[in-house]
């Protein structure tokens, strides 16, 4: 086993642990924090089924963002949809045998990489060109965009220009499941790509990337509009009534 293989194996064990533990911690924290008052942004659905629909539109179509800003919406949607396909495509490196749907999307997944980078470029451009967005951007906002662009570009380069030994890469990742370390090819582009991805996994629970789980816990979006029909009472607020 080379030093490199050991280092990357460790990095991915660590990154996966931080990602899973960090996200679990955050999700549990969100779930445990009560929402003492009914605050859905109205008009809001008056049934649970309606809320599921509203949430689905937010997650899949970014409905509110669409109403808010068409340019941001189009770039953001291209980026996220690209990211989604790319992620699905990558599943083949982590599964054996590869399920048919994952095999099916492989060709789309490759081009989704371009879509992702294009979307990111548009979003990044806004951070420079629109004075309001420039004002609210901090270094971390640029760094995350840079990180994702680099991940995307290094991936695209491997797909189209400097190919790497994909079979060994897959063997490396499958081996991680059983702590059986298989050698990782020492291509610089692959190593860059993988370390950036590990980095992304590690910062996920500590950064604004928490928007992904956050959306599901947003009371203005996930509450049913039925306060007159159902009495809504948080545990800490119920204590006032015992006095």
């Amino acid at each position, binding site marked *: 086993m080379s030093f490199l293989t050991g280092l990357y194996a460790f990095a991915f064990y660590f990154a996966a642990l931080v990602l899973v533990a960090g996200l679990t911690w*955050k999700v549990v*924290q*969100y779930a445990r*924090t*009560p*929402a*003492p*008052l*009914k*605050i859905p*942004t*109205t*008009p*809001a659905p*008056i049934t649970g089924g309606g809320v599921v629909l509203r949430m689905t539109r*937010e997650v899949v179509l*970014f409905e*509110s*963002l669409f*109403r*808010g*800003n068409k340019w*941001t919406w189009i770039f*953001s949607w291209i980026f996220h949809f690209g990211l989604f396909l790319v992620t699905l495509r990558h599943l083949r490196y982590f599964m054996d045998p590869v399920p048919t749907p994952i095999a099916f999307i492989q060709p789309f997944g490759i081009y989704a990489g371009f879509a992702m980078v294009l979307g990111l470029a548009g*979003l990044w451009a*806004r951070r420079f060109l*629109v*004075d*309001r*967005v420039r*004002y*609210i*951007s*901090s*270094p*971390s*906002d640029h*760094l995350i965009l840079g990180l994702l662009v680099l991940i995307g570009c290094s991936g695209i380069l491997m797909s189209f220009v400097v190919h790497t030994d994909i079979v060994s890469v897959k063997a490396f990742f499958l081996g991680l499941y059983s702590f059986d370390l298989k050698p990782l090819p020492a291509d610089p582009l692959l190593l860059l790509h993988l370390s950036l991805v590990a980095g992304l996994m590690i910062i996920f629970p*500590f*950064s*604004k990337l*928490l*928007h992904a789980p*956050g*959306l599901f*816990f*947003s*009371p*203005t*979006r996930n509450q049913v*509009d039925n*306060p*007159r*029909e159902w*009495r*809504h*009472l*948080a545990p800490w*607020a119920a204590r*006032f009534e015992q006095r």
Partner: protein
Amino acid sequence: MAKATFVVPALRQYPQVPAVTPGTMAHSAPFVAKPEFQSPLGFPGALADDWQAQAITKMGELLGKYRSLRVYMDSCVKCGACTDKCHYFLGTKDPKNMPVGRQDLMRKVYRRYFTLVGRIAPKLVGATDFTKEVLDDWYSYFHQCSQCRRCSVFCPYGIDTAEISMAAREIMDSIGVGQKYCNEIIGKVYTIGNNLGLPGPALRDTLEGLEEDVYDETGVKVRYPIDQVGADILLVTPSADFFAEPHVDGLIGYGKVFHEAGVSWTLSSYASEAANFGMFIGSYENMRRISLRIREEAIRLKVKRIIFGECGHAWRVAYSFLNTLAGPWDFLDSRYPVPQHICEFTYDLIQQGKLTFDKTQNDDKVLTYHDSCNVARASRMGDQPGGQFDIPRAIIKAVCNQFYDMDEDTIRDRTFCCGGGGGLLTDDLMELRVKGAQPRVEALNNVMQEKGVTHMAAICAICKSQFTKVLPYYGMEMDQIVSLHQLVSNAIVLTPREDDDEDDDEDGEDDAQALDDDDSESIDEAA
């Protein structure tokens, strides 16, 4: 009137998003509450030496009590969708009035003390210590948010800056930095029963005066009862409705509608306030204490239903929170929602064909309708989503011949705040109020030019007071803002009753003067 010491924004035909101009409103801050206004609400009177530690502790407490705060502090991706949505940014150009700019005032403190990256590399994520300068910024800019929730409509995660402003004000109150206007008013509710500080006898005199006025004008005895045990309906209305135009014309209208419905109803002198400024300062305890007065009165007066008069944030607290704060309401008539809005009540009667209108009585006006933010984005009327938009419009169309909506981007859930909501309706914030009204007044101006609109109806005491005050700054008339039930009152055809001919006014002529001019000056200070 309308002498400005600042530049009143121009009204244009097409709205424009201004270029970011930092610091234009840094000087704006409301008067700070003196210790005597803080203690009745359970807050310290002044900053202590360890205020910073206290504030951080309080922030941690709120992060554990409010999921909204917790999730919204983490989730913002700085996408910018909200940046051009706040009327205060559009009117002042100050980037700290962009919703995300406002949130970041708290987020930078949150990140510094409650996140890993903010602790080790604050510069990277824009985190800062909670210094006195930051506190001053908080006081200034969290009192430049009317908690209208327009930003939350467009944010991909529904981040509601109102939640953050409320939390910020609660934190500031807890370390002794309160806002005079809100806290003084809440104190008045505790000691006297309403925001304006009108005692029971004054209310009774005013209502008797109203009965006489309506009788003189219509020849029909319409009652305006107060503290009547055993009435079916308890009406809770903003105290501004007890006098001052155009509010009182709305109250006259409610009475006429009840008269035609043939129901017994009453006001209460103890719960003589629909407004609940506890919400503006983010204080669950104070909001609950104010709400409980309504429960106590519903029990004492043995009523079967509760109806709220025209008031925006009051309707939010009533519709969305009252069940939580002061419920359960199982002792009331379960055939009706608790509480109901006066518009729901009037609308139902119209649907049943129980009201007759002479629409020509409003022919001297061409109407438009201002959706008040708390009604539009934080509550509902009727049993379908969006009833809060359709029901008031249906009533206006039933009583007026000429009605035109303002631009789609400025009504319904995209409505612009009047500029005076959220506890900012005070003279010490006049510049902010005028500038914040700009997007709404601009849309109004456009329908005035294009459709010949003359009047704008609203169902919120704050909106009405605010427009009465700021429209003149834009060269308009203060009486262009009207109560919705004022239009109902004008058009409704009253059914005479048998006792209408008897004159039962034995006790003097000048009851109506019970409230002197001094009070009417302070009205828009306390709507």
